[in-house]
């Protein structure tokens, strides 16, 4: 059993409410931070912890905090990114739904560290009922003097507001989120300036993911150094993984980043193996935008080493033979799944969610969807596969925000690792409508080059 820092108490009856959360040791970290530590000392602990942003990019959180500009007389803001929208990802929802006070406590501590007196939680519009859960938790925290004016007699004031979006994946990108929070279309801003200098209403702003802010609570409780001892290398602490697809036990799991991908998929403690006795074909381990890997590259790296569920091991080999930890949205595909069709649904998703600002993304995502549709339905040409490759190459890196990359990578990885399946669709236009390509050789051991 791995160590649990976030979800340990998530199943205690009544933990959604202040009294139970408090009885179970809640708000001790907030007390410790606000009454015994200076704001910079809190930031220092987060730095020492090695905590990396849990939204997908994995940027060190303490470093992000230390970039925050602090000009005199200008308000600073902390904004919590709860716009969880990356297909495969539903971990923040779990955290907010079952243990909302952990997030509120993390927000109070982080707001104190950053000097934010108005803190906003921007939550995706579809999570409508979670707004009520969070607002209730905030009111309970206020009644107990952990939110509002003069918190715990320290003179620190902090209001926390929940802002609901209205359905736009792009608002998970931090500058689009800020635009949306200001009441505009979610069009990402050109960086620099970064939000740390010019963010919400042009004021210095930190935007962090829900899980990142919740992790601040155990970091303050046990200390940054202790937190950094959990995990391995630069993958410190614990990570929430939301597992879905063709597995026996879909759900949200907290892991310390030392277990192997194989253990995560097959052990009963986690995914419980592939559903219906099928075989593993492929997996997208970090949310839909990260590269898909066939079973043989997923379980072992190209060097033949077991692949571990952490930032470094998942990305081992770069995009040629590796993938990314991303948001922890772990999508498992069994032998009956069609890679072309799966890629088509993801391409359609990104076309739908492109904000339309940058032409490579606006035009490219729609073009890729059309080509994939042709291939999937037996109307593709061999040259379409190269065309797809060419289009994704021209989107990647040529847009204001990372949505372009996010749209390009799944297509690139599918062609890179499953080209024969695409070609089979083209060569068998009738058969491909009647059956799937199947497992083929994607689970067969790879020849490992020895030096």
């Amino acid at each position, binding site marked *: 059993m791995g160590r649990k820092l976030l979800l340990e108490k998530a199943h205690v009856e009544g933990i959604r409410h202040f009294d139970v959360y408090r009885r179970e040791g809640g708000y001790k970290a907030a007390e410790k931070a606000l009454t015994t530590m200076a704001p910079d000392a809190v930031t220092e602990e987060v730095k020492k912890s090695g905590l990396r942003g849990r939204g997908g990019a994995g940027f060190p959180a303490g470093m992000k905090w230390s970039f925050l500009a602090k000009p005199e007389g200008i308000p600073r803001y902390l904004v919590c990114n709860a716009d969880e929208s990356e297909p495969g990802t539903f971990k923040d929802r779990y955290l907010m739904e079952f243990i909302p006070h952990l997030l509120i406590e993390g927000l109070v501590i982080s707001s104190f560290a950053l000097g934010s007196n*108005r803190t906003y939680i921007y939550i995706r519009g579809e*999570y409508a009922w979670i707004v009520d859960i969070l607002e209730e938790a905030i009111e309970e925290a206020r009644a107990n003097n952990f939110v509002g004016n003069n918190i715990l007699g320290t003179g620190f004031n902090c209001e926390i507001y929940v802002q609901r979006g*209205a359905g736009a994946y792009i608002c998970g990108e931090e500058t689009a989120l800020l635009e949306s929070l200001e*009441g*505009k279309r979610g069009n990402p801003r050109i960086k620099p300036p970064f939000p740390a200098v010019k963010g919400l209403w042009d004021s210095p702003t930190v935007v962090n993911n829900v899980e990142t802010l919740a992790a601040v609570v155990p970091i303050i409780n046990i200390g940054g150094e202790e937190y950094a001892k959990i995990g391995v290398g630069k993958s410190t602490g614990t990570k929430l993984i939301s597992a879905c*697809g*063709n597995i026996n036990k879909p759900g949200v799991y907290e892991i310390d980043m030392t277990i192997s991908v194989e253990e995560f998929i097959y052990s009963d403690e986690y995914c419980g193996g592939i559903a219906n006795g099928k075989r593993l074909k492929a997996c997208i381990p970090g949310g839909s935008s990260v590269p898909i890997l066939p079973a043989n590259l997923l379980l072992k790296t190209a060097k033949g080493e077991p692949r571990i569920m952490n930032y470094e091991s998942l990305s081992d080999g770069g995009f040629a033979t590796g993938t990314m930890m991303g948001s922890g949205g772990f999508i498992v595909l069994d032998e009956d799944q069609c890679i072309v069709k*799966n890629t088509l*649904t993801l391409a359609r*998703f990104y076309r739908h969610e492109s904000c339309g600002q940058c032409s490579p993304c606006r035009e490219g995502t729609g073009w890729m969807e059309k080509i994939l549709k042709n291939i999937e339905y037996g109307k593709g040409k061999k040259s379409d596969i190269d065309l797809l490759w060419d289009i994704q190459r021209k989107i990647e890196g040529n847009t204001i925000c990372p949505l372009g990359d996010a749209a390009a990578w799944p297509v690139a990885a599918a062609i890179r690792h499953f080209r024969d399946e695409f070609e089979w669709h083209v060569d068998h236009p009738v058969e491909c409508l009647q059956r799937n390509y199947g497992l083929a050789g994607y689970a067969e051991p790879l020849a490992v080059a020895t030096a």
Partner: protein
Amino acid sequence: MMNPFSEAKMKQVDKIIARYPEGKQKAALIPLLNLAQEESGGWLSEPTMDYVAGLLKIEPIEVYEVATFYSMFNLQPVGKYVFEVCQTGPCMIRGSEDIVKHIKKRLGIDVGETSADGLFTLKVVECLGACGYAPMMQLGKYFREHLTPEKVDKIIDECTQKAAQQN
């Protein structure tokens, strides 16, 4: 212009606007449109949007450009119950297409259409963040998860009964 808000809701409107610093009331736009849509039978008419513009002292075009950007705003009338079935990868591999097919057959409508009695609208949507509980759909404020054709039938019956009771 049409005020979609009851007196009680107007208090909520004031509370929402008070969340933002002086002069930044435009930030209340999306929350107010969400509220206006709930109060206006699930969609936003031009007069409703114009009213919200007036409330926030912004130009109507600033409201339209936002209302047309976000997929949860309906700019045409919808049924009393809107079934929004997720069709993205993780739901697709767990059978969302069969769910859509079943709803189409049961209600006799296509995607994007509303049933003749005005009760049901069927939409397909992109990932709603419930991938581990697939296939799923949004119905009003809540998610309906682990859908099967039988479960969908129950939901339809439940809605029909509820609507009959309200009439």
